[in-house]
């Protein structure tokens, strides 16, 4: 099938969809091509642009928080003077108020998790990689796919419009535990930042579910001819298992949010006990609700959500490492089973967020054991990545550097997790900066480095241009250094007892000696924040002036590299038949050190080695590299 025939085919399909329109030329209108597009690649780019925008919003919020912690009582430079001096800053000083501080940290967490990491990990890579890597033209349900993106911008607007309510943004942390999040001190039916937060996350949840349903049906139904489940790259496997987790977990979050919305807006009492004494009044109308119930419902989703945020990146990092180490993934099936084990156990460990919550300590014992067992599949993955590097031929491209950073930072994040998995050790470090360090080692050091690796790896296929390697390495270098300088000292703060979410630690005598570390962290965080501009600059510059990408720039094996350098709607310009697994590098009896999945040829497997029996030379018209 040639390029033109695909385009014609696609066009006929679309003409059928929109028989109401009558266009003289056979082109989609621009807004169907770039805005309300059903093309999975366009949707992926939309997810990327939206999430990177929010990355800077969330990052800026983090820098406000850091400024206050390092220099409490000092006005924020430049920006402090333009902030309104109501509840945002103390009148005339440019110093943020404690109330605004709490709002900032709540919004930082919410934005980074729900508007940056999940849209990038599941939304962007899910959309971009799945159809291309399983060799199909688009998602199974393209319209639903479009909706899964277009719920996010309104959700983001609703979330950010909290700033314009009377009390400002939601201020109960990204976890929003009631009764604080129920806003019992304001009259019922009042729209507060918290109400908007609940509505917004409800929409985000629907967006996730729509995407996930789509991923599952696409992967099950639309794989290229000859592709068995165990021929899929680990990225697709990880996204598949992640999608299953999303469909199982997100409805539970939605139910919790709905109940909390009732409590918040209509003053019901799902989570509110009787006789609450709020600042405003004696709130005796509340019934016998239980605040801890919300934590159970919330963490039943939000702990799996941690894996939703990291499993896709584990898959991506595996693909990047195999390609640049020129090695088959060590223990491909073990990697899949480990992902599945993490996903399965991930639904049984939510209670470790609640060791100190006041739930029955007997549950603490059981959750401690299940939690500590989840370290086993995680360590299997790390060992297999090391096995993949072993006897490879490693090229340190920007993508590979970020993937290696993912592995090493994930080791640190995983090890610091053991501390809090042990319930008695958690007594001291719970709700201290040790937890903050841990979550950032997993979600920044893990997820975000994985996302960077994925962006550097697939950018050529997304835009048909190569990203600039030199600036890619500079971005990596500054990010990696500043990241560790920012978040490693937070472990120390935590061990010294520094609580999370405090506006001014200096009112405590036992925290006063930590001021120097806080300043150091803030300076590093500023460097970390501003070094992300290198990435954005690189992306924008390369989109326009980058070197034209070849069809298969990394000489990789998976199906997306069979597509044209800048694939249009419909993706492939030839029929795809899959002949082998995704990681056949360095096959014996073959001249090239890689053997793409789509190339015909026979091989046998002897003692975990693949030996080529016959090979068909690459057809030069497709220009494999």
């Amino acid at each position, binding site marked *: 099938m040639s390029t033109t025939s695909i385009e014609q085919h696609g066009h006929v399909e679309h003409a059928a969809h929109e028989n109401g329109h009558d266009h003289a030329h056979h082109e989609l209108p621009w807004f169907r091509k770039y805005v309300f597009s059903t093309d999975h690649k366009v949707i992926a780019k939309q997810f990327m642009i939206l999430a990177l925008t929010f990355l800077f919003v969330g990052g800026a919020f983090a820098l406000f928080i850091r400024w206050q912690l390092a220099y409490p009582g000092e006005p924020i430079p430049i920006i402090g003077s333009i902030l309104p001096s109501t509840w945002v800053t103390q009148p005339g000083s440019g110093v943020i108020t404690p109330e605004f501080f709490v709002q900032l940290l709540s919004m930082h967490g919410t934005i980074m998790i729900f508007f940056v990491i999940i849209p990038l990990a599941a939304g962007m890579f899910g959309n971009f990689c799945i159809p291309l890597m399983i060799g199909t033209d688009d998602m199974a349900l393209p319209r639903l796919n479009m909706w899964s993106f277009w719920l996010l911008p309104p959700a983001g607007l609703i979330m950010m419009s909290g700033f314009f309510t009377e009390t400002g943004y939601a201020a109960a942390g990204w976890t929003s535990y009631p009764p604080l999040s129920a806003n019992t001190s304001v009259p019922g039916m009042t729209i507060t930042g918290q109400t908007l937060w609940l509505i917004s996350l409800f929409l985000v949840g629907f967006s996730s579910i729509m995407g996930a349903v789509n991923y599952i049906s696409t992967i099950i139904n639309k794989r290229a001819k000859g592709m068995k489940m165990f021929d899929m790259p680990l990225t697709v496997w990880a996204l598949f298992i992640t999608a299953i987790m999303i469909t199982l977990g997100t409805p539970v979050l939605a139910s919790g949010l709905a109940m909390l919305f009732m409590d918040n807006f209509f003053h019901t009492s799902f989570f509110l006990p009787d006789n609450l004494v709020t600042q405003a009044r004696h709130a005796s109308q509340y019934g016998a609700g239980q605040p801890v119930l919300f934590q159970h419902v919330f963490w039943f989703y939000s702990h799996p959500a941690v894996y939703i945020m990291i499993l896709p990146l584990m898959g991506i990092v595996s693909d990047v490492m195999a390609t640049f180490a020129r090695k088959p993934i060590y223990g491909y099936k073990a990697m899949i089973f480990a992902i599945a084990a993490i996903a399965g156990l991930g639904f049984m460990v939510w209670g470790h967020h609640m060791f*100190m919550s006041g739930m029955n300590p007997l549950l603490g014992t059981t959750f401690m*054991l299940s939690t500590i067992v989840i370290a086993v599949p995680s360590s299997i993955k790390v060992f297999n990545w090391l096995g993949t590097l072993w006897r490879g031929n490693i090229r340190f491209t920007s993508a590979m550097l970020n993937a290696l950073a993912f592995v090493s930072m994930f080791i640190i994040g995983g090890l610091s997790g053991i501390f809090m998995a042990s319930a*008695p050790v958690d007594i001291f470090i719970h709700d201290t900066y040790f937890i903050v360090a841990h979550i950032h080692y997993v979600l920044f050091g893990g997820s975000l480095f994985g996302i960077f690796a994925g962006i550097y790896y697939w950018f050529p296929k997304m835009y048909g241009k190569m990203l600039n390697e030199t600036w890619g390495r500079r971005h990596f270098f500054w990010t990696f250094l500043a990241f560790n300088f920012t978040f490693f000292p937070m472990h120390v703060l935590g061990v010294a007892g520094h609580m999370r979410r405090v506006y001014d630690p200096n009112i405590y005598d036992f925290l006063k000696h930590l001021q120097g570390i806080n300043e150091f962290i803030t300076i590093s965080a500023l460097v970390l924040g501003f070094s992300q501009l290198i990435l954005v600059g690189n992306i924008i510059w390369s989109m326009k002036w980058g070197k034209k990408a070849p069809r298969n720039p990394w000489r990789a094996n998976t199906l997306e590299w069979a597509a044209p350098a800048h694939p249009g709607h419909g993706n492939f310009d030839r029929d795809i038949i899959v002949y082998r697994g995704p990681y056949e590098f*360095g096959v014996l009896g073959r001249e090239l050190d890689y053997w793409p999945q789509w190339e015909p040829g026979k091989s046998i497997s002897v003692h*975990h080695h693949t030996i080529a029996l016959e090979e068909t030379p690459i057809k030069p018209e497709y220009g494999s590299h």
Partner: protein
Amino acid sequence: MSDVLHILDMLAWFPENISTYGAELDWMFAVIYWLSVAIFVLTFGIMLWFLVKYRYRPDRRGYNYHGNNIVEITWTILPTILFVGIGLWSDSMWETTKYAKKVPVADVEIVVMGKQFGWYFMYPGADGKFGRNAYNDRTAREMMSATNPFGRDSVDPAGKDDFVMENQFKFPVNANVVVRGSTLDVLHSFFLPHARVKQDVIPGTWMNIWFNCFKTGKFELACAELCGGGHYAMRAEYEVLSRTGYDAWLDKKNAEMIVLNGQATTAPAADAPTSDTTSAAATQTAAPSTSNAAKH
């Protein structure tokens, strides 16, 4: 350079430990810490070694090898043994610190109430027992208010000598202190960094918290659960007193209560209670009136 090393020596940063079980908790942290350091050095070291040894060479070719089940099983079973071991080993300390049945007999019993943004501490007073309040009688919750945070029943004579401290409390050294904690409004967390105590407190539910401090002095108490804008300022102080110092302080407080109650009631001269208060009065404490309340 020495500062950098100081950062890496994480264990040196703990605040001074003053509680009996604190040393063991710190020791558990230290064990996991050194284990983590060892695992990190091992895995990261191997990774660096591979990265250097197998870096790109034009004449080199990646080794086509898909993995080995024996190796996989080995590195599944070894971490399982290690991690499950840590879990089982942790459990006894968890039971000691948190299980309700492991809470020791109280030498000092205090009822704590968190609010936005501060802490109330209630002592049973000279008679050694609490009057009717929201802790020992659920129906008394209706009386809770900003001015009466514990929902104390002013009619109950056993409660007449109960006294409340705000943002500070005191207890004797080497004594089992049992704290019953709850809150008025939102979640708070009762965090005593030096005593290695942390427990979220929940409105409508009572938490059992216990500790035993072996060192006297003044220390700080913080809230560790986000509870609003003033969360950071929800600070309180506690003082661990010597036995005699604590008794003297209690006597002083009891005497204050007598003066306070003497003004309000017509103190019937009952027989002197058996406390070691020197000011023998403590009359209205009404130890005989066992009738109500305390049964809950």
